């Protein structure tokens, strides 16, 4: 009995030491020693700490890789502030994500702050000089809608940041405005590009419903919008829906579903020509990574679930091939990812995909 208690105390002391709580650790190890005066390990640990305290040596810093990251200040948390919050639960993440999403700064400034994407080349595409100034400034009954940032203001589309809800003034002279692609046609093309049908359907429904009147949350077509503008907007909407799906699934503990939604989002971003989804994906990377890790479990050990012939007849890229070659039934997920040389996000995503395809299993 005493042995068990002393063991527990030693282990707890080690944990305290690991957190830098030197006094706490010392107390626990002394307790262990009181229970088992001959316990060599306890003796060594007590003298180890005592020596350091006598020498006034500061508590050794933990390796930087394992350093606990400070919790973020929720008040200052922005859309992309979900980077590096490892100590929150999935439920907290979901809540924060929803909160952050509602704060998503769609303004020009907000977009400028975010990661530059293809946006930087868009002004060239989006500023048709043939459209007269008054036409370009014309608004529908919608809220102001951000357009990708213009690096060269003289060539950008000048869209007012806030336009009162009003009947749009008629253009003074007729001008050709390319008609927006019908929602259904756009949806079909997105599905063909690999965007999940469910997400596309939701966007189409929203857009169709939004046709005659303004919708508060989604961008409605602007009369001057090009098909590319619409595609951007829709892609962004799809992205938001998928991110929400990831966080909802995470909150519900449906890790496989969360990982699948994360994969859908990434696929959509990779296949979509517009930067719309990319803008949503980038700030959500931590959430997506969390989904993949939740699906895999960090300490599980992956093994092959199929034979070599099945692997060989499948279709993988060489990076997946490399990761598969590292799976030997001994390395836990965390270590495997650390040695993959692929970066944590990509490695976790690949392993999660393999798990969903039942190529590997995690025990």
């Amino acid at each position, binding site marked *: 009995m005493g042995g068990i208690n002393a063991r527990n105390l030693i*282990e707890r002391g080690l944990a305290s030491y690991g957190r830098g709580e030197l006094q706490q650790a010392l107390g626990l190890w002394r307790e262990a020693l009181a229970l088992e005066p001959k316990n060599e390990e306890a003796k060594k640990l007590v003298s180890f700490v005592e020596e350091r305290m006598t020498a006034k040596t500061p508590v050794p810093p933990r390796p930087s890789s394992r350093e606990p990251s400070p919790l973020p200040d929720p008040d200052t948390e922005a859309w992309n502030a979900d980077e590096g919050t490892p100590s929150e639960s999935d439920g907290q993440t979901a809540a924060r994500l929803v909160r952050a999403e509602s704060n998503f700064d769609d303004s020009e400034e907000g977009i400028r702050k975010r990661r530059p994407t293809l946006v930087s080349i868009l002004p060239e595409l989006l500023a048709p000089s043939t459209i007269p100034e008054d036409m370009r400034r014309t608004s529908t009954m919608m809220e102001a809608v951000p357009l990708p940032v213009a690096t060269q203001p003289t060539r950008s589309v000048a869209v007012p940041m806030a336009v009162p809800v009003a009947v749009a003034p008629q253009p003074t002279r007729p001008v050709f405005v390319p008609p927006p692609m019908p929602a259904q046609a756009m949806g079909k093309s997105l599905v063909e590009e690999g965007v999940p049908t469910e997400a596309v359907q939701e966007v189409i429904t929203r857009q169709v419903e939004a046709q005659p009147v303004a919708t508060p949350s989604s961008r409605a077509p602007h009369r001057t919008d090009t098909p590319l503008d619409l595609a951007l907007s829709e892609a962004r909407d799809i992205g938001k829906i998928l991110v929400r799906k990831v966080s909802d699934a995470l909150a519900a503990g449906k890790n496989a579903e969360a990982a699948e939604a994360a994969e859908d989002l990434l696929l959509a971003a990779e296949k979509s020509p517009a930067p719309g989804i990319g803008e949503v994906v980038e700030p959500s990377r931590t959430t997506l990574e969390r989904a993949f890790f939740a699906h895999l479990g960090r300490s599980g050990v992956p093994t092959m679930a199929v034979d070599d012939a099945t692997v060989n007849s499948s279709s993988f890229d060489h990076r997946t091939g490399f990761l598969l070659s590292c799976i030997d039934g001994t390395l836990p997920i965390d270590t495997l990812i650390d040695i993959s040389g692929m970066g944590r996000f990509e490695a976790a995503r690949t392993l999660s995909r393999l798990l969903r395809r039942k190529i590997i299993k995690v025990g």
Partner: protein
Amino acid sequence: MTERVIGIDLGTTNSCVAVVEDGSPVVIPNRGGYKTTPSVVAISESGRRLVGHIAKRQAVTNAENTAYSVKRLIGRSWTSPAVKAIREMVPYKIVEGPHQDVRVELREQAFSLPEVSAFVLQEMKRVAEDHLGEEVRKAVVTVPAYFNDGQRQATKDAGRIAGLDVIRIINEPTAAALSYGFGKEIEGRIAIYDLGGGTFDISILEISNGVFEVVSTAGDTFLGGEDFDKRIIDWLVGGFRKEHNIDLRIDMMALQRLKDAAEKAKCDLSSVRETEINLPFLISTGRAQALHLQRPLSRHKLEELTHDLVERTLRICKGAIDDAGIEKTDILEVILVGGMTRMPKVQEMVGEFFGKEPCKGVHPDEVVALGAAIQGASLLENTADMLLLDVTPHSLGIMVMGGYFHRLIDRNTTIPTAKSHIFTTTREDQTSVKILVMQGENDRADENELLGEFVLTGLRKALRGEVEVEVTFEISADGIVSVAARDMETGQHQSITVTATSGLTESEIMSMATEQEEYMVTVRADESVEKERQAVEKLVDEAVSLMPSVAKALESSALGSQGLEAARATVDQARAALATKDPDELAKMKSAMGRTLQMFKTLVKDSEK
């Protein structure tokens, strides 16, 4: 309880640890079940220190931050030609230390070579402690017979940094012979043919009345199993290029896989005649398609690819036999050491060369560590039935007029030993002489290593050649070299003791040792939390998988949705605790989840009735 002494074979490529248990030496397997651990150290992208198999498996993809074969560098000075040569060959950065020593830079942090070796020794210590269930403090560590004093001292320092008291450094061939001769009555000369992962050594030993004496030793520090692997890789790369016009070496992931596959194929071919190298999705074609590499390799082909490497070892064997002044026929037994000696062709060619079948009674990967463990146990028991006699691996002497090197003690001289020689002054009225103590084999003094220097003054003024000075070299049983110079006329004398140095100061060693101790405590603390975390994670997974059945069961029970909500809340709390890494919180949740899970199981069981 008697304190244990472990035996460690700190190899260039792999290391092995053994201990004597119930009177028999046994090798201790590591956590992965392997009896050898790669002597590879890396720092991963996340800053984790990786040692052993894990480090080896990412050695190509994280080449700049992976240190291997540091044994080739240990104890050498920055200016040594060997260091210059190695710097050109390795992908990791080698930098100059503050005392003209050599350091390795991994992720922008410089590590001394004893420190890097200490990481490996620490791993071996840990393997032994896990197996024995007790702390290990003492060790016997083996080194190649040709290691000089500096290299031996650096190995000892590595032990200190790792928290080990290295009670004896012994030569690898001596350890192998000890293991081979354990429990046998052997008298005569034996040859130890050691072809390891990165180096080749041949040693001739004389065993007489339980006394083991190394009579000659030779080798090549750049010839080993890795060269055999390279030949296979070259063959595979060449074939693939011919077939697809793609150079596999350009992709680090492909190269890592090739390296692993080549080593595996080589090992397989020691027991089978043909093996297939199968590497699916090896390299991208750039058209969203990955190519496979599938190629059979026969034992015959491997032998053809590597024949010259084995021949090279035999040429070195011939030199060692000549050095020992014996004939091949004088050799009683040939003992094979090192993983490469499992290759049938190596065994065959060695057998042909020596004119006798090599001994197969010892495990080539383990024999050195076993010998070290035997020596450790015998030192502990203070038994006099085993006496190890070592030889000095290099010639010792002084610099004389004209910049020449005058040998006083020839290499391969059994120690302890002492030798004197009389020198004279070189010019008229010379009142002092400078004694430059050197080590090496070259007749030119500046090509050899300077061990120390001192000046003998107060000589009588006389014509040149008239004053005689006697210089005496002495090497103790511990390998400590003392040099004395005495004026034959006046008896006035001066002397120095050559102290080997690893390139680190005492305070540096102490500080590194403390750092390592602290690191290990931190690692253990993290492991402790991780263990608890895994237990909670397992309970949560089990509870979540039971949740649908529980919900169904609760539908018809009095608890209803409230019960389910409470259960969900507990699972949520456990998930939150998993993210905190707080040991107290984890312990609390482990017990709460245990109760919840028990309740779930009972509910589901009852509902199934």
